[in-house]
C-alpha cells in the first residue's frame, strides 16, 4: 500500500529525514517509536504534503501512485489521513460545514454526487457514536475551545467520516487521560478493516496495549534503525533507547 524509498527531507535547509525505507501492506499496523527529535512527526508531515518541509531525495508510492506528486488534498482523496498531534482551531468554521466540504470534495474526486443535507447529517450522527463525540461539539467551530481529549476524539471522528485507507496517528495519545485514551483507541479499532492500514507514532507502550501493532520501528536521527515485532515496544518501555544507541556504537 505504502512504499517509502530512501526518503530525505529538510526544513529551512536542515535535513531531518536521512533516508527512510518503509513498506506497509494492506491491513498492517505499524508503530513508529523513537526519542524526541528523531524525525517521527516530520515523516508524517512529509507524507501528507505539509509545504513547510522539502523532500530532497527519495520516493513514496501510495496505492501505486507517486504520492509526492499529489497535492495535500488529493493525497487525502486517495485515502491518506493524518490525526494531527496538535489539531488546529478554526474559529468561525463550523464542524458541520467543515466536514461537509471535506466529505463532498472527496465524493467529487470519486465521481460521486454530493450528499444531501439529510444524508450528511445521518452520517455525522453515525460516526459521532464511534468516538462518543458530543453533539454540542459537532455544532461548534472546528476544535475551538475543545479540551485536549476532545480534540483527539474529534480527529478520530473525522477519520471515521472520511474512511481513509491509511491513517497516521501522530502522538494521538499525548494529552489524553486513561478514559479518553481508551475511547480513542477503541474508535481506531472499530474503524480497522482488513483493507486499511495504520501508522501509530507514539512514545509509549500504553497506546499499543490498545492498538496492537504488527511491526514496530525505531526512528533515530532521521533513519529507521531497528524493526521488529510488538515485543520491541515492550522492551523499549523497559529499557529506554540507550541500548539501541549503544548497538549503533554511540
Amino acid at each position, binding site marked *: 500500500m505504502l512504499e517509502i524509498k530512501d526518503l530525505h527531507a529538510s526544513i529551512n535547509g536542515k535535513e531531518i529525514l536521512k533516508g527512510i525505507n518503509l513498506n506497509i501492506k494492506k491491513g498492517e499496523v505499524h508503530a513508529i517509536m523513537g526519542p524526541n527529535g528523531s524525525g517521527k512527526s516530520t515523516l508524517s508531515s512529509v507524507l501528507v*504534503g505539509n509545504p513547510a518541509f522539502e523532500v530532497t531525495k527519495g520516493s513514496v508510492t501510495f496505492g501505486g501512485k507517486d504520492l509526492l506528486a499529489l*497535492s495535500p*488534498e488529493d493525497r*487525502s482523496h486517495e485515502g491518506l489521513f493524518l490525526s494531527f498531534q496538535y489539531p*488546529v482551531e478554526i474559529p468561525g*468554521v463550523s464542524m458541520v460545514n467543515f466536514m461537509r466540504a*471535506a466529505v463532498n470534495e472527496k465524493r467529487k474526486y470519486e465521481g460521486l454526487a454530493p450528499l444531501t443535507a439529510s444524508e450528511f447529517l445521518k452520517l455525522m450522527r453515525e460516526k459521532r457514536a464511534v468516538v462518543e463525540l458530543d453533539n454540542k461539539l459537532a455544532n461548534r467551530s472546528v476544535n475551538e475551545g475543545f479540551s485536549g481529549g476532545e480534540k483527539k476524539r474529534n480527529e478520530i471522528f473525522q477519520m471515521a467520516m*472520511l474512511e481513509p485507507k491509511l491513517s497516521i496517528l501522530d502522538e494521538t495519545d499525548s494529552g489524553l487521560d486513561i478514559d479518553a485514551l481508551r475511547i480513542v483507541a477503541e474508535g481506531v479499532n472499530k474503524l480497522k478493516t482488513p483493507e486499511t492500514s495504520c501508522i501509530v507514532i507514539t512514545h509509549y507502550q500504553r497506546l499499543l496495549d490498545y492498538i496492537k501493532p504488527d511491526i514496530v520501528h525505531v526512528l533515530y536521527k532521521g533513519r529507521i534503525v531497528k524493526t521488529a515485532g510488538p515485543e520491541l515496544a515492550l522492551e523499549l518501555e523497559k529499557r529506554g533507547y540507550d541500548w539501541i544507541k549503544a548497538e549503533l556504537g554511540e
Partner: protein
Amino acid sequence: MRAEQQYIDLFSQCEAMICKHSAEVLNAPRAQAFADFERLGFPTRKQEKYKYIDASKLFEPDYGLNLNRLDIPVNPYEVFKCDVPNMSTSLYFVVNDAFYNKSLTKPQLPEGVLLGSLKELSEQHPALVKKYYGKLADTAKDGITAFNTTFAQDGFMLYVPKGVVIDKPIQLVNILRADVNFMVNRRILIVLEDGAQARLLVCDHAMDNVNFLSTQVIEAHIGENAVFDLYELEETHTSSVRFSNLYVNQEANSNVLLNGMTLHNGTTRNTTEVTLSGRGAEINLCGMAIADKNEQVDNHTFIDHKVSDCTSNELFKYVLDDQAIGAFAGKVLVRPGAQHTNSQQTNRNLCATRDAHMYTQPQLEIYADDVKCSHGATVGQLDENALFYMQQRGISLHEARLLLMFAFVNEVIDTIRLEALKDRLHLLVEKRFRGELNKCRGCAMCK
C-alpha cells in the same frame, strides 16, 4: 482648475433651478452650505480625516447632474430582482436621489408614521422637517456635507412618532441609473421619537455601466428609549464613487445598531459620527468590506461619549484581495464627566495578497477616569496551519481559503438583528467570495 470651481460656477448659475425643484426647508440652509463649501472645498489628503482617500481628485471628472429633475425612465421592480428578495420588508425605491412614488403596493404602516420623499414631506410638514433637517450634519465642518447640502434636492424621510413600533423592516433600495457619467446628491432624514422602534435596510445598486459619483448625507435623530437598526449594503460597481456621511444623535437609553457592508464597489468613503447625548444610550457600530481588484473602502468613524453611562461597541472587518485598499479610522471621545463609559473597538483585517493594503487607526481620547475602554486592530493573512489542516481533510486550497474568509466576516454578519437578513447575507457573502455575485440579472456589472 480646482475641482471645486465647476461646482461653484454651477451653483451660482443654477441656484434658482435647484431651489425651484426642491422644498423651502431644504433650500433654507443652501446659502450657508454654499459659503461653507467655498471656504472648505473638497477634502484633500492633507486633512487628517481624509488622508487615505483623495476626495478632491475624485470630484475632478465631469459628471452630469439632474438639477432640472427630469424623470428618469426605470422600473425598479425589474432592476431589483437579484439580491435581497422575499425578505418580507416594506420595500421602497429611490432612483438616483428621487423617491419612486409609483410603488406597486402601499405597505401598511402604523398611524402617524411618515415615510417617503423628503421633498414632498418637507412641503407637507415644513415645521416638523425644519426641526430636524440639517441639525446634525454641520456644513461648517465637512466639505462633503457642505457640498451635499448645497445641491441636495430630494431623498428619503422616515418619521416614527412617540412610542410607535414598526415591526416589519423597511427596505430602501437606492438605484443609480443614468446613460452618461452621473452625479447624485441624496439626502436621508430619520426621526425616531421617544420610545419608537424601526429597522431600515438601505441597499445601493448601480444599474448602468457609466461612472457614478454619489454623495449621501443621512441624519438620524433617535429619541429616548428608541430602538433603531440601520443596515447599509453597497453593491455597486468598480466605476462608482460613494461618499456617505451618517450623523446619529442618541438620547437617553436609546439603542442603535449600524452595520455598513461593502460587497461590491469602486471607491467608497463612509463617515459615521455618533453622538451619545443621553445617559444609558448604546451604539453598536459595525461594518465590513470585501474588496478586490482596485476597489477602495474607507470607513471613518467617530463616537462621542458626551454623558455618563453609555456603551459603544465597534467592530469592523475587511477582506482585501488583489490590489484593493482599505482604511479604517475609529475615534472614540470620552468627554469629561462621561463616567462609567463602556467602549470597545475592534478592527480586524485580512490581506490576501501582497499588493492589498490596509491602513488602520484606532484613536481613543479619554477625559474621564472611571471608564472601561478597549481597542484592538490587526492586519494579517489567512492562517497557514488552518489552511493545511483543511487540505489534509481533502478540502482544496481554494475552498479552504473561502471558508476561512467567510468565517472571518461572519462575526460582523452575526451582529445583524434580523434573522432573514442574516441568512440572506451569509448567502450573498458566500457568492461574493465565490465571484458569483456579479452574475445576477439587471445590474451593470452583469453586462
